[in-house]
């Protein structure tokens, strides 16, 4: 069996496919970053402050933003194909199918600006929640593996409670159940035009709590796969248990945890769409709104689905690169198994 068939998992694609994925993914991110920059209030104020020309249109509302890729060429092709379909009679159904991707592309370019604005929220919800989640997950996992009976069962209880209840229920609990939303907007933590500013913060809190439990499980498994002799050797040199865990077990364990961690990352990109249910205008909520405005539900959900797919695939590829980069001979990674 060749290496290509063994490593068929997402993110481990090789050769020409990898180049294609890299180019498409790179183009997607270039477009996203450019869109975000073009309507960024902070960049705008920086540009104004240093006297640069007024290139950034931060005052333009999401609904009014101009698409950069024109829809007309796609629409024209679709129309032409529609004409052909009408001319060839019953067999025209097939031609209509051919026309559909072009209609979809035309639709995608016109909805692109709104989806890009939503993608910004999707990405920061995910990234911030993953980062905070990791900060909680590492001590949770260490306590679970190396803690005393009480602290490790507390860690276990937290993990099982969070993993055993639906994310949507947790989100509603934090949003409706706790007075968190009022508290957050009272402090005025975050301004988010077009939405109760507290909603995004509550979403981050809920996702952080949720993802910390899952991440802790991945890290626990990884820590347990570090050979016991490693900590023994660290202690035999004179390091305390805490120093041994920090300098010997964690550097190895966290490397082993990357594949599982990638999995959680990919999950959270998609499950952050639940934030739409507490009014956060993320990518999914924008899509829903566009659907109810245009009644083109099929089209918008296909387009937003492709956008999520793009985010997920580029994340998987990036995480694979991270895994390869931090790999050491004999620690983690698939090198030597090919």
């Amino acid at each position, binding site marked *: 069996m060749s290496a290509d068939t063994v490593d068929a998992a997402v993110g481990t694609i090789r050769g020409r496919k990898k180049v294609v994925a890299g180019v498409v993914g790179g183009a997607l991110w270039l477009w996203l970053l450019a869109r975000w920059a073009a309507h960024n209030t902070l960049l705008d104020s920086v540009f104004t402050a240093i006297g640069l020309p007024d290139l950034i249109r931060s005052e333009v509302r999401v609904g009014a933003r101009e698409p950069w890729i024109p829809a007309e060429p796609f629409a024209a092709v679709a129309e032409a194909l529609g004409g052909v379909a009408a001319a060839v009679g019953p067999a025209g159904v097939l031609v209509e199918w051919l026309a559909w991707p072009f209609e979809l592309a035309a639709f995608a370019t016109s909805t692109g600006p709104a989806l890009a604005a939503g993608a910004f929220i999707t990405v920061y919800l995910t990234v911030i929640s993953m980062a905070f989640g990791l900060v909680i997950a590492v001590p949770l996992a260490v306590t679970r593996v190396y803690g005393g009976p009480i602290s490790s069962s507390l860690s276990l209880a937290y993990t099982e409670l969070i993993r055993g209840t639906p994310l949507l229920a947790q989100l509603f609990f934090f949003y409706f159940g706790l007075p968190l939303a009022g508290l957050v907007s009272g402090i005025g933590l975050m301004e988010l035009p077009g939405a109760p500013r507290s909603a995004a913060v509550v979403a981050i809190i809920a996702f952080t709590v949720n993802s910390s439990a899952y991440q802790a499980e991945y890290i626990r498994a990884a820590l347990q796969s570090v*050979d016991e*002799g*490693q900590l*023994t*050797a*660290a*202690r*035999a*040199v*004179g*390091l*305390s248990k805490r*120093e041994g865990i920090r*300098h*010997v077990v964690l*550097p*190895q364990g966290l*490397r082993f945890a990357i594949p599982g961690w990638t999995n959680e990352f990919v999950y959270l990109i998609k499950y952050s769409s639940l934030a739409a249910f507490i009014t956060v205008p993320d990518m999914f909520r924008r899509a829903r709104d566009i659907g109810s405005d245009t009644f083109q539900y099929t089209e918008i959900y296909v387009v937003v689905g492709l956008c999520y797919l793009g985010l997920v695939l580029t994340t998987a590829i990036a995480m694979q690169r991270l895994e390869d980069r931090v790999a*050491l*001979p*004999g*620690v983690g990674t698939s090198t030597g198994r090919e």
Partner: protein
Amino acid sequence: MSLLRVDSVDKSYGDEPVLHDVSFGMDRQQVEVIVGPSGSGKSTLLRCVNRLTEIDSGEIYLDDEEIHGVDENELRRRVGMVFQDFNLFAHLTARGNITLGLREVLGLSKAEADAKADDYLDRVGLADQADSYPAELSGGQQQRVGIARALAMDPELILFDEPTSALDPELIGEVLTVMKDLAEEGMTMLCVTHEMGFARSAADTITFLDDGEIVERGPPEQLFENPEHERTGTFLGELTGLHQ
């Protein structure tokens, strides 16, 4: 004055007695070899000395200080250990394996630690492998790094827990050579090993442990030529026969 004194030590895992009334002492610059069948408690005895395992009763003195009154990390700095499975830190280079303890425990600067690590790697003949990771080294090389790691902490005593048992036969020699050099330089060593050649030539005293008790203890000539107990003779005879 003896450097290490083990006094009526008892240890059991649950209901399973492992060590019973074990007492012996060793002086500085002595090499003591512990032999015995597997399951006789040799490794446990070694681990009791640096408190990787806690004893149930009895006393252990290092330099006339009861070790349970000493901070365990301080104790382990003073008592080095070399493992059967090497247990090198897999994510660190040969040099990094040595400098971790130097920096975190002894508080040396990076430059000092690096220089000292390179010195000790040179001493075990691995100066050219300083930047290699454990996975890139042979078993014999890994164990020599393990010895350098223990040695660099300037311990008063080094414990060797079957240092050659995990090695291919052709790699045992290089490790034993390093150990013999250490013995000649006057390092105090407490070794559990099945290498009878090493025991015979390098040990000052051999202790035969069976079923958690010291059966017989004495200089190599006595145990090999003239054992008091039949069990000792049989066991040593079998081992020597095996390894010739």
